[in-house]
């Protein structure tokens, strides 16, 4: 029964990194490999950036160089001098659809990815035809005063607004990878939702997708003004390919008085990727910030979306799912910082490990002095699918106030023989039964996703589960 594990696993989408998707020949500009002040200055120059941004990048580089690598979390084997930090894409087609391996086309098929998006995702098209597909949406948003653009464009066209917030939620001094991103960032989304404006549909990166927006060092900044609402959906559940091994994004969010922001990510990286992302939101009076974060794939993911509850009544919710398979370490979690009284936080984390994968929950709940009547709850559940896999929990709780209510629950379970037998006695194969149990395990989070993402998430889990038993 167990003998087929290694072979069958190779059929999964996790193995996609073995295909070469480089489109180097089409680049009109490529910074040389490695990282130094000259390269950082060159990146800024290529982008025609104002001096303040160029200075910000150079200062961030110094901070990066002065900071040691984190000594916790996962094992990082990164040679920073062996990476291309900037590649300016062209509009030219890099290669043809015929060159895309059949197995990847099949994966797109099974995920039901629309034709136009497939070509982009497979590296066939550098530019996604967002104007054609989503033009009317863009117009509607513009009428409401919403700014939704890539961050490079925002530096040029909304410089004052961007500058007011850029790097204030996550300064370059925050951590080594935030400093790296600050020095070499490219792409990402910039969103401003004016006072009282509600955006009824989820804003998706698809709307303005282009090669740069999905780069290695994305930089996203979202400002939700007083009483405004937005739901942003980042990336997509389709497998993402890259020949570079390091992805290090920074996402900063400011939610002002009584504003609401939900940020949903489902990421499914190729198996060679180090995915080191810093995500943080500041929530002000009566505001609500929700992170919904799904992590599949990658070699190592270290990601702990944070909400700083800055003023009374602010609420933060973080729901995360991690799926670690062979050769993967998901070190994921959440942080809630209560910096004001009457604030509340909720963290729900679910992890699944199989085929020797390792899933760790790492979380922090911090209550600062004076944050009285604050409430926080943490629930983390781990499901381990076999004896080779591993799950750890590192919950940190720092409370500097008496009058608070903090709860923490953790559970670790294995798929039981009795559950499997029950489902199989009803006609489900062992693989279908396991998939159903895993699907049920993550259901509380999947039901929070927009419908099409929930469907894709379930399909992804099915793909991940195929060949895991039998």
């Amino acid at each position, binding site marked *: 029964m167990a003998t087929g594990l290694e072979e069958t696993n190779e059929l999964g989408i996790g193995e996609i990194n073995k295909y070469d998707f480089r489109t180097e020949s089409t680049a009109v500009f490529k910074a040389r490999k490695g990282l130094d002040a000259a390269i950082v200055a060159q990146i800024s120059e290529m982008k025609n950036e104002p001096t303040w941004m160029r200075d910000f990048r150079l200062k961030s580089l110094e901070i990066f160089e002065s900071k040691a690598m984190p000594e916790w979390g996962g094992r990082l084997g990164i040679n920073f001098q062996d990476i291309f930090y900037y590649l300016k894409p062209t509009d030219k087609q890099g290669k043809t659809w015929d060159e895309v391996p059949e197995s990847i086309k099949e994966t797109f098929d099974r995920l039901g990815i629309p034709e136009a998006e497939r070509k982009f995702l497979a590296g066939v098209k550098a530019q996604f035809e967002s104007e054609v597909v989503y033009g009317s949406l863009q117009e509607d948003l513009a009428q409401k005063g919403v700014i939704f653009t890539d961050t490079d464009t925002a530096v040029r066209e909304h410089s004052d607004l961007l500058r007011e917030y850029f790097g204030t939620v996550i300064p370059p001094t925050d951590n080594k990878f935030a400093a790296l991103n600050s020095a070499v960032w490219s792409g990402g989304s910039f969103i401003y939702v004016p006072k009282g404006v509600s955006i009824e549909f989820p804003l998706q990166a698809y709307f303005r997708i282009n090669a740069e927006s999905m780069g290695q060092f994305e930089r996203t900044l979202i400002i939700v003004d007083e009483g405004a609402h937005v739901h942003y959906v980042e990336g997509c559940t389709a497998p993402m390919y890259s020949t570079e091994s390091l992805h290090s994004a920074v996402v900063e969010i400011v939610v002002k008085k009584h504003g609401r922001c939900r940020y949903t990510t489902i990421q499914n990286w190729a198996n060679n990727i180090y995915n080191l992302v810093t995500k943080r939101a500041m929530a002000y009076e009566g505001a609500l910030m929700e992170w919904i974060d799904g992590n599949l794939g990658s070699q190592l993911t270290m990601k702990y979306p944070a909400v700083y509850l800055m003023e009374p009544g602010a609420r933060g919710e973080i729901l995360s799912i991690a799926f670690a398979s062979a050769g993967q370490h998901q070190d994921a979690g959440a942080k809630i910082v209560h910096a004001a009284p009457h604030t509340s936080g909720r963290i729900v984390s679910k992890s699944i490990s199989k085929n020797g994968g390792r899933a760790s929950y790492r979380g922090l709940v911090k209550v600062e002095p004076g944050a009285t009547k604050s409430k926080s709850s943490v629930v983390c559940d781990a499901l381990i699918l076999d004896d080779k896999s591993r799950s750890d929990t590192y919950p940190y709780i720092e409370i500097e106030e008496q009058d608070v209510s903090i709860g923490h629950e953790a559970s670790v379970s294995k798929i039981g023989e009795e*559950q499997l037998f029950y489902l199989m006695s009803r006609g489900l*194969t062992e693989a*279908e039964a396991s998939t159903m149990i895993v699907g049920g395990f993550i259901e509380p989070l999947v039901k929070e996703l927009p419908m099409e993402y929930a469907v894709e998430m379930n399909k992804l889990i099915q793909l991940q589960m195929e060949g895991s038993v039998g």
Partner: protein
Amino acid sequence: MTAPAAERLVIKGLHVAVEGQEILKGVDLSIGCGEVHALMGPNGSGKSTLGYAIMGHPSYEITAGSIELVKSDGTRIDVLAMEPDERARAGIFLAFQRPMAIPGVRVADFLRHCVTNVRNPDRKEGEELMPMREFRNELKAKMAELSMDPDFARRYVNDGFSGGEMKRAEILQLAMLKPTFAILDETDSGLDADAVRLASESIARIGSGGAQGSSEMGILIITHHEQLLEHNVPLKTHVMLGGRIVESGGPELAAELHKKGYERIRAAYPEAAAAEKAMEDTRADLAAT
């Protein structure tokens, strides 16, 4: 286009061990389509073990004997060579005494998948499920027949169900999957008198309502009480003691056992009674260690 339907479930000389301890010591039983058999016996005599062995629980090791499905054209299918899901697709069903909870999985989603597989035994993983509308209509109708609240379909499988709800959920599965042979393991336990009567009526209706590929279902009812048999009068009543079927009779035997217990049986079959005593002692020893 359809293969000949199975007509009999035939068990011969079945020996079953769990963790090295022999529980069944040679069971013979033959159930035909449309027949209701009752299986009675004291606790620990091996009744549930027989149910698990027929369904293929991995912890129940078959050390000797055979379980076969015999078709109308005389072909025999070796049930022991099949995985539990293959047995389900071949038309065998076990209503669990203690069904498992599957948190996060809705009754409707679970059943749609099961029904699709059982009705299309050759279905490959990942192929389309039964159309949603068709399935929903059927589920709704079956739930109405069983006087179940429609909200039940949206609940997570057996998660937080009361004892009675679990048993009704098992009967609903029976109704939807329409097996050729059903083993009902104490489907009456934990139910009050009214609920048992309802269960009894439901099972009778489902059993004669046309099983897949045959006119009627063959049913093995494991029970301590005769009430469940009220609407399912057994063709035969079997008494299990010490891992063997020691006596078989008609419906009157069930009535006798229900009224008078197993003293006459123990006295009449001293060897089986000794085996029962030995099994009890081993269990007590295991529990003490």
